């Protein structure tokens, strides 16, 4: 393998590992704020107990996000010097704003949020939680602005092969940015909703019936049930936006080889790049035309218009299907569970058994979605401006191969440990119930009717 493909694999490995943790911290920050505000409003210590449990998960995820994020900031230079040399005038300020407005906000106030509950007033502690949540979201804002600009560049001109900014507003709010930002923020919300509900379901299965478990479980289930329909709607709009600006990506997502009307919706197929056709195809007639053009004889662009200039079909096609499949499973599970919690006030064991392994379903869908959109951008690094192979650095393949191997081994190990620690924390919490002392926390719930089943 040459340095190009190794460098791509290495970048993919690093960013795939990295994105998992911000996906958790972006939304978990807001959920923690919700727990905190509920505690402030009700004086019920169980909310604070839920807060302390999930703040540990936050700390762990944040640490992994920081260390893998540091790696990312070096990657541009070590492996892709051509990227900054060509579009540095645009990517630079966006990255700079990310570090300045977001990274520091999170990192500095995280200390107060994690360790400061008894050192600062309750008000300052709540404020620190707000700032950390706001910081993680701003991080997402800037980095997605850059990523979207790479997908659908705008507001610049090329002079001597280097991009110069002409309109910063157009650069930040480039055509795909609003859709991508909304889609990713909701994806983060869903990831956290299922993580919280999943780990709470695990505690439930271990016999934990504590107040704090129920509060977290209900938060996770209702958050997931509320977000998933919104996500399906936003995802559809994002897809239509992609059809407008990157039609070759949509053609690959649908494995549609020929531009034509009455395009079927392919449910299953093995896209064959050599023969430029699908094998073993199972499809719904006119489905893709209906979804993409809202008419059964709508003309859908096919890959034949982009020969030599479209992404590899199979990974994009499958990435998209995995994402949608997980999304549908999320819809079914969260609505079924939400129904039982609302109407019956119980959690049936089969649903708890289904929820526990779905704790990390958000990760699967997020990664599948990112693979769809990032592989779907190929062969371009910046659509129409810079091809991926033009940006790779002069480092020999042997060195890249070596570092890639170590990174992958390290990431696999860390992932196993991370999952192990989360499980350990959940089991330990299940065993302790709500019995351990919480110094500094008032526990005087306002008089409220007991809820059935709790």
């Amino acid at each position, binding site marked *: 393998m040459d340095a190009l493909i190794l460098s791509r694999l290495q970048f993919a490995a690093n960013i795939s590992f990295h994105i998992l943790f911000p996906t958790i911290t972006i939304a978990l920050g807001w959920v923690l704020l919700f727990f905190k505000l509920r505690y402030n409003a009700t004086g019920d210590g169980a909310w604070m107990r839920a807060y302390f449990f999930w703040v540990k998960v936050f700390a762990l995820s944040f640490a992994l996000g920081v260390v893998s994020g540091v790696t990312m900031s070096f990657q541009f230079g070590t492996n892709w*010097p051509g990227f900054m040399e060509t579009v540095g005038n645009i990517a630079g300020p966006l990255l700079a704003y990310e570090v300045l407005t977001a990274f520091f906000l999170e990192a500095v106030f995280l200390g107060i949020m994690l360790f400061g509950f008894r050192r600062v007033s309750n008000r300052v502690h709540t404020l620190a939680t707000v700032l950390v949540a706001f910081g993680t979201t701003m991080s997402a804002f800037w980095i997605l602005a850059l990523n979207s600009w790479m997908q659908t560049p705008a507001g610049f001109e090329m002079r001597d092969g280097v991009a110069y900014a002409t309109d910063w507003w157009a650069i930040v709010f480039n055509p795909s940015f609003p859709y991508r930002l909304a889609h990713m923020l909701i994806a983060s919300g869903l990831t956290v909703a299922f993580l919280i509900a999943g780990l709470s379901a695990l505690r439930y299965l271990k016999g934990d019936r504590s107040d704090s478990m129920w509060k977290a479980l209900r938060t996770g289930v209702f958050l997931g049930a509320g977000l998933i329909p919104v996500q399906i709607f936003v995802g559809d709009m994002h897809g239509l936006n992609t059809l407008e600006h990157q039609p070759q990506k949509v053609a690959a997502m649908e494995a549609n080889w020929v531009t034509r009307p009455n395009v079927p919706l392919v449910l299953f197929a093995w896209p064959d790049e050599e023969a430029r056709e699908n094998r073993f195809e199972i499809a719904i007639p006119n489905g893709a035309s209906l979804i993409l053009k809202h008419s059964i004889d709508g003309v859908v662009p096919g890959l034949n218009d982009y020969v030599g200039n479209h992404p590899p079909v199979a990974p994009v096609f499958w990435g998209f299907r995995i994402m949608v499949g997980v999304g549908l499973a999320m819809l079914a599970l969260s609505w079924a569970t939400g129904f039982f919690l609302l109407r019956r006030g119980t959690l049936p064991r089969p649903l708890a058994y289904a929820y526990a392994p779905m704790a990390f379903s958000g990760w699967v869908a997020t990664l599948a979605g990112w693979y769809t959109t990032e592989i779907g951008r190929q062969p371009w690094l910046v659509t129409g401006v810079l091809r991926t192979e033009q940006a790779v650095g002069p480092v020999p393949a042997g060195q890249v191969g070596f570092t890639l191997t170590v990174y992958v081994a390290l990431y696999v190990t860390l992932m196993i440990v991370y999952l192990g620690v989360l499980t350990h924390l959940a089991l330990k919490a299940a065993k302790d119930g709500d019995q351990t002392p919480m110094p500094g926390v008032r526990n005087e719930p306002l008089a409220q009717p007991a809820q059935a089943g709790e």
Partner: protein
Amino acid sequence: MTLDWPVLLPLIFAGLMGLSILIYVVLDGFDLGIGILFAMADDDERDTMVAAIGPFWDANETWLVLAVGLLLVAFPVAHGIILTALYLPVFVLLVGLILRGVAFDFRAKVPVHRKHRWNFLFFAGSLTASLSQGYMLGVYVLGLDDGLAVFGFGALVALCLAASYAAMGAAWLIYKTEGELQRKAVRFLRGALLFTALGMVAVSLATPFASPRIFEKWFTWPEIAWLTPLPIITGGAFLWLWHLSFHLPLKGDRHSITPFLTLAAIFTLGFAGLAYSFYPYVVPDRLTIWEAASATESLGIILVGTAFVLPVIIGYSFYAYRIFGGKATELTYD
């Protein structure tokens, strides 16, 4: 040269980048150093040592992201040249930083019988990260060359930088702890101080002799007259700290923060010397800051944000250090 924006902006950003590197070295220096000193502490002491850096290390490491980020966004060409030349040491640095960062969090959350493993990784990660930073400094000073001599010099600087981080760590412990651990930290400081001095002498001698241009900058009249105080003050600070280390801890914990501040001053002086040597180059003797800089309008956009945000960052960093001031106690998530 006239002072217009295309001239000024790269200069400002070189200054900001230098400032970020210096703050990073001082701040992450003490928490990396405490990781190195893990090797010489027992289990109870380790918990206290971690408590002394717990609320800070995330933010400390962020200064590295800012420094590398500024190199990336303000001097993209230099970022490419430097990081591809230092490909493997950068990789070692990153692995070290990853290991220590996660070990820091894992050690407190894994089942108790596995804590040892993560204590070791916290030490090993801190040490490799420090060594690789020193190695990179050595190679950079010699103009990013390769060859056995460069490797040897890099290894020497690596050892000395790790030792000076250990000195920073010890100084921070003197400030944040009391009793036996504090007395131990004083002994650590004294040992590490020798290597710190050795490293600074080595870098100070190698820099002018590796480059005739730098030699010229230091050893000509009248520059030499107003540069002479720099090494003299540095040497004086070393001697004073050495002397102080025989008397610490003092009654009423007087001067407990002094070793840390003195070391920070020594780092600043050494850094100023380096900055003077290499100016105006960002890649030694190859690429000046103006040749490597981004477009003026892009730098302008970044500067606007920086001017607002950087004072705020520095302000709330001070606030966080004040909240967690005083002696380190047990660290809990509440």
